[in-house]
């Protein structure tokens, strides 16, 4: 029987339906009151008279896949019923958003395109809770985002107009890593992969700083510096190979090679400071991150020092570590916590001096 026949026979069963078409071409019917809960669909129906039949199905934005549409309609179907209590609605919402992060993102995007603000609020609140307090690396993992900056771009040296020894240390690390990158690209062996994974924690450190500098004006200058440095590199390759041949834990591996290269980085450090572009800026909010991360990192390095010395000597390296330790320790001023000091003063202030007792 056709739809029309059914309407004649059982008029009381005839509900209004709206036709919706998703980007993949599939068309479906949805109860009108449910679909109308979405402002975008509502607009299409009322302003443009669309959706009343299959041929005039409302084309939904590309971001609304059939799966997302189904979720959105579930949401609408529940909430468009007027009689529900706030408690019921809240309870439904809490259960509704229990889904994996990828879905949450797609749902946010889809709901946004349909202008369904309550659902956008719900999903974005959930996403905000997920993101809160996470590092950029963690965020990339959670949302399955590739590390879009090339390794090279991430290793641009920082400007160091104040001659901050911490930044000097970082720039040295970058120089060393740039060299390593070059070696990796030349050699391409399995150990390279493993070492890369291990150095993720240092990459965190670097990405903190470099995320901002990627767009800054100083990039051009830094690229020139990089070329200079590369020319000085070749003789390092053999010593790094030795270090990599070591079969101890991976952290040991990377640290050994770092220490060896630090000596050479001191050679370059004058170059870095001279080339500095004064117009560069670091996001000041990141400086605190830098403080902490450098401390952690340098502490990590310093703690392994006795074993490293042994290794270096046994591998026939005779470079003295003097420079590194001086700079390494000198740069580690503890980030003072001023909070307690200020609050102390506060409490003094609030004791009224005119107290009768």
């Amino acid at each position, binding site marked *: 029987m056709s739809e029309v026949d059914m309407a004649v026979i059982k008029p009381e069963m005839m509900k209004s339906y709206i036709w919706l078409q998703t980007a993949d071409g599939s068309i479906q019917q949805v109860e009108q009151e449910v679909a109308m809960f979405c402002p975008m669909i509502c607009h299409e129906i009322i302003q443009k008279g669309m959706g009343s039949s299959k041929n005039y199905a409302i084309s939904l934005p590309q971001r609304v896949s059939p799966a997302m549409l189904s979720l959105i309609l579930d949401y609408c179907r529940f909430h468009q019923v007027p009689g529900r209590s706030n408690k019921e609605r809240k309870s439904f919402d809490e259960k509704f958003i229990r889904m994996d992060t990828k879905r949450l993102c797609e749902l946010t995007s889809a709901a*946004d395109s349909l202008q369904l603000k309550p659902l956008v609020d719900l999903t974005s609140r959930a996403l905000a809770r997920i993101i809160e307090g996470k590092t950029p690396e963690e965020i990339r993992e959670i949302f*399955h985002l590739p590390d*879009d900056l090339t390794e090279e771009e991430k290793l641009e040296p920082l400007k160091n107009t104040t001659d901050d020894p911490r930044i000097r240390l970082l720039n040295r690390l970058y120089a060393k890593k740039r060299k390593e990158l070059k070696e990796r690209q030349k050699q391409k062996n399995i150990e390279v992969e493993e070492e890369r994974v291990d150095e993720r924690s240092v990459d965190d450190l670097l990405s903190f700083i470099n*995320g*901002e500098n990627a767009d800054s004006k100083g990039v051009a200058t830094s690229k020139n510096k990089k070329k200079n440095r590369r020319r000085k590199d070749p003789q390092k390759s053999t010593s790094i190979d030795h270090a990599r041949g070591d079969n101890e834990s991976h952290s040991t591996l990377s640290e050994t090679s770092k220490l060896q290269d630090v000596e050479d980085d001191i050679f370059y450090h004058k170059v870095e400071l001279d080339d500095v572009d004064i117009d560069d800026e670091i996001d*000041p909010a990141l*400086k605190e991150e830098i403080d902490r991360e450098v401390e952690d990192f340098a502490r990590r390095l310093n703690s392994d020092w006795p074993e490293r010395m042994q290794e270096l000597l046994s591998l026939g390296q005779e470079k003295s570590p003097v420079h590194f330790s001086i700079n390494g320790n000198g740069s580690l001023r503890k980030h003072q916590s001023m909070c307690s000091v200020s609050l102390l003063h506060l409490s003094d202030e609030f004791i009224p001096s005119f107290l009768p007792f």
Partner: protein
Amino acid sequence: MRIEEKAVAEMGDGEQQKMMWSRETIPRVMKIVGARLHQRDLVSLLLVSPWIHRALVSYSSLWLVLDFREKNKAGERLIAALSLPRYHHLKEINLEFAQDVEDRHLEVLRTEFHGTLQNLERLNLNGCQKISDKGIEAITSCCRKLKIFSIYWNVRVTDVGINHLVENCKHISDLNLSGCKNVSDKSMQLIANNYPELTSLNLTRCIKLTDVGLQQILLKCSLLQTLNLYALSSFTDKAYRTISNLPHLRFLDLCGSQHLSDEGLTCIAKCKDLVSLNLTWCVRITDVGVIAVAKGCRSLEFLSLFGIIGVTDKCLEVLSSCCSNTLTTLDVNGCIGIKRRSRDELLGLFPYLNCFKVHS
């Protein structure tokens, strides 16, 4: 618990999909979510990918607040941040208890960032003790649309600084001078003459003030809703009486007003919209004053009678008959004249009480 494996499987193959995801979907979603994130997390997001960076940086409504509370080198950080284009639509700068903020930093703001700060509405310099009148001159000259200004606990600010404020910023509605001990009646005159629409004023510990100065404020700033006179013991009824001139007053802090008498309090009771009244250490008050308040201020939610020995159970009875529906905070510690003031007895009189101690 999230099902990450499922998500990975659904990702499907094809660089195409991955690119869509990281270059379009995620940046769009992060723009939406960004509005709910604190500065710290927003900056972390910027570092996640260039696509997110681009999407967020251009969305100026995410970058309306610079928060350097308790940070060190805050003056330098502020200058560095302001050189980033995304902070050129700032509405608020918060330097509360930040270290290393000096006049010269504010002067740099005036010379370098004059244009970019013109829409600033809220400035918090609480605890920035190195700032002097000079710094105030500098910052107010480039932030003329300032509405909320707070410079708590700064003894270098004088009437000169306040003069700069009133000359440059004509739209102040909320002013916090708590602890600015060197501010005198002259400043009160300047404020009274220039801010008839002031809604909130905090004069805690501005000990140089006298009745003369306070009266100026009370006579001309008739839209005041919040007035804080904590730890100001030199005022007398002469000024207190004039508080009745503030019909919109909701929050009044008179902690330490040792000269306030029942007569003055009875005048204050004419502010019928009072919601919060702090009479801690107002040692001359008796039942008479409190009863006047009970009868006049029927929306009272917060009342402290801490340390007043002249009040008895009588005033609590009247208070109960007038304000038991609204009162949620009542501090009668040290009120030895009140015999029945155990927690249960108080709850009997005021069923909605949830806080029994204000002053410590």
